[in-house]
């Protein structure tokens, strides 16, 4: 449960409770002392004539008030413990509080109903959810309304404290009324202050949350930038590696070949036999070069494909994505009996990889479905995610590259962004790839 740390708020809560205790005790004692005064002055019959209903024994009223206040106090002490240590719902606790409060107010013949503000305060303090709060507000408000003496005394008969006070001598009457109204007013005032502090606190809390959200958003942007940057670096590194590979393998071989051929051009007329030998060497170099190029290409392949079959590689990649994110990826694979060459596998692998990355990064998808169909004339790959999708697709670098890659295989790619994001890839079949054919 969210709790405010505001010291002021809890201080004012305690003070309101304290004040209400004073007010209840004061009203109780007022009944007692007024009764005693009236009895001593032989005004009982006049009091009876002015009251609409006979009063309770003021001594009972006093003890009952003390008992109820004691219950309330015990309840307040154990309430936080009960909340923390047991599974007691706050609704039940507030209901208990409401019942004790109503008993206290009724016991006092409705002469003081400010106690209900304590319940209001606790509802606001403990129940943060507006929907859960509402029924309690309604009930408390109704109780507040129906325990208002001036309102309810027209419906039912209550021995009014005002009648008692009216029997006191002028000076005391003024003091008694004044202190009673003073307590009521201070209680109301404190309640309003409580509300204001609560409001300010919640505004501050809201502001803090907003600030935190803004910070998170900023961090997110930074991270995105960082990802872009590291991609760029990785790309550069890859380029350099390719350049080095070309330089190291093909470059050397081609330099050697070109030098050898130059030598052959000179030798062919002078010594054809030597030329032949030279050509043998060149041939070897070219073969070696081809081997080197092949090895280089091998190095450039996706790691997974290097060690596993195509399907295993796909599954491994999917697994890695699943582990890295909350993405749920499902693969429908119809290509069990298809033997593709490495280049094709690489390209298709890259397309699928790119699609999943896009679904995750741009679509914020939670689920991706990869369907790999095998039709008589073509292969179809449909990658569907449940992300945001894109209304108006403007292919960026990734999508364009995807299209280019597919085009290298004579295929093409279509994108749909209406309902999540869908990538449809078709690649024409070449003879001999499908073992079943």
């Amino acid at each position, binding site marked *: 449960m969210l709790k405010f740390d505001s010291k002021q708020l809890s201080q004012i809560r305690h003070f309101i409770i304290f004040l209400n205790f004073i007010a209840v005790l004061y009203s109780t004692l007022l009944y007692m002392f007024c009764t005693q005064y009236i009895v001593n002055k*032989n005004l*009982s019959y006049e009091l*009876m004539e002015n009251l609409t209903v006979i*009063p309770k024994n003021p001594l009972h009223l006093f003890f009952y008030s003390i008992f109820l206040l004691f219950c309330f106090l015990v309840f307040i*002490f154990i309430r936080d413990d009960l909340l923390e240590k047991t599974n007691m719902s706050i609704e039940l606790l507030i209901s208990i509080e409401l019942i004790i409060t109503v008993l206290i107010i009724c016991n006092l013949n409705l002469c003081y109903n400010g106690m209900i503000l304590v319940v209001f305060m606790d509802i606001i303090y403990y129940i943060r959810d507006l929907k859960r709060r509402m029924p309690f507000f309604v009930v408390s408000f109704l109780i507040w309304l129906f325990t208002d003496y001036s309102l309810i005394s027209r419906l039912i008969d209550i021995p009014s404290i005002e009648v008692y006070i009216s029997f006191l001598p002028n000076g005391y009457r003024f003091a008694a009324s004044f202190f009673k109204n003073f307590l009521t007013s201070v209680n109301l005032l404190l309640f309003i202050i409580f509300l204001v502090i609560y409001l300010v606190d919640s505004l501050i809390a809201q502001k803090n949350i907003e600030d935190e959200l803004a910070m998170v958003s900023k961090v997110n942007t930074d991270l995105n930038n960082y990802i872009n940057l590291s991609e760029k670096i990785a790309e550069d590194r890859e380029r350099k590696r390719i350049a080095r590979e070309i330089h190291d393998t093909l470059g050397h071989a081609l330099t050697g070949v070109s030098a050898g051929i130059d030598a052959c051009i000179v030798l062919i007329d002078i010594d054809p036999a030597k030329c032949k030998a030279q050509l043998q060497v060149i041939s070897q170099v070219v073969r070696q070069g081809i081997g080197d190029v092949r090895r280089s290409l091998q190095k450039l392949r996706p790691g997974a494909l290097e060690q596993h079959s195509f399907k295993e590689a796909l599954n491994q990649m999917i697994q890695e994505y699943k582990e890295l994110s909350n993405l749920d990826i499902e693969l429908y694979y119809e290509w069990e009996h298809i033997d593709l060459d490495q280049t094709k596998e690489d390209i298709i692998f890259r397309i699928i990889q790119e699609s999943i990355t896009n679904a995750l990064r741009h679509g914020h998808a939670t689920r991706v479905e990869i369907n790999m169909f095998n039709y008589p004339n073509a292969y179809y790959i449909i990658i569907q995610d449940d992300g945001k999708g894109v209304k108006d697709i403007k292919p960026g670098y990734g999508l364009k590259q995807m299209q280019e890659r597919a085009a290298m295989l004579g295929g093409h790619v279509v994108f749909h962004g209406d309902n999540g994001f869908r990538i449809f890839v078709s690649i024409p079949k070449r003879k001999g790839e499908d073992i079943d054919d």
Partner: protein
Amino acid sequence: MIRLLRKHKDLVAWPIVFALMISFIYAYNPGRKTVLKLGVYAGSSWDVPSNDTKVLDRVIKKFEKAYPNVKVEYESGIQKSEYSQYLAEKIVQGKQPDVFVVPQDDFALLADNGALQDISGYMENQRLSKTDFYEAAYNTGVYHNALYGLPLESNPMMMCVNIDLLKKEGIQLPTSLDLNQFYDICKKVTHDGQYGVAGMSWQNIGDSFGLKSFTDDGKEAHINDETFKKTINFYIKLRNLNKDYVVSSEQFDEGKVAFMPMTLAQYRTYKPYPYRVAKYSTFNWDCITMPTMLENPQTRLNTVLLSLSSRCTNKQMGFAFMKMLCYDTSIQQEWLKSNLGASPLQSVMNSKKSEKLFGETEALKSSTIDSIMQTSYAYPLFKKKAQAEMKLDYLINQAIYNNNNNVDYAYIQQEVDQEL
């Protein structure tokens, strides 16, 4: 402090458990005697000297014998005049007796304030029949269609007649009169220091006309209407016989007045039968029903009620006591003998013992009282009746005595309505 209490919850819990156990044992202790507190006053209910209060003690003894686990207590020595104040004091402090006597004037206030228990349910459960009581006596305890008290003792209004004076004037004593006959007799006897009637109030005349000064619910006064005007006009006419001279009850005592309204209790106090000191020994006198203009006479009846407190903890027991005191014929018979009113139980007033008590030779036989009780009427009570009646009486008298019989009914109506 709070932290300390939180740490040592036992310190708080054990005393509470202990206190609860003690109170439980106390509350459900089977050996504890139930105490039934009574609220009664010493002396007569009717502002006349009275000699006997022992009958209540006998009733209590009988009750305690019938219910051995009950102890009946009452505070003795409270005078009738202090009783209303005493009761109010107890009620205000929440210490009201369980069963108490309610004077008629206080009844509406107490019933309205919820001090009294509605006993209609107990009446039904215990099979008490309301027809055993005189209707008027029973109806006194009815307030807003609920029954708040059983009649303990009633006091009907009667007209006392100086028989010797009438004989001297050659007038035969009738058993009943209408107002016109009454006026004629008064007129005939008024001469040479002799007067017709003493202490006849305009309310007495109003009763004879069937006047109702207030609506039954006490929300409105009926002053500016025909019956009221008739009543006041007759009152003025009667008064004019004496030419503004106010005849006092002392003059009746001296034998110079023919009629004087009197309650049964006054009659029983002063009638020298069987052994009381005679107040009027110089002339023969007796009582008849009040003069009336109605076919069904409405004699004013005053009734003292016994009520059950709404805060009584053992209401069954309380009602049992009420039943014994108000509904038991032998006890009511005893009560009738030692007190001065009439019994609200019809069977008691018609018993042989009562016939003997009131004497067979007198004009006022117990059967006469029975017929007066039969025709009597319980005027509806309401909370502010006493004040309103006092104000009305004051205004009427002021108009008649200070304002030369000029009664401004509309003004009085307005003034009295303000009290309601």
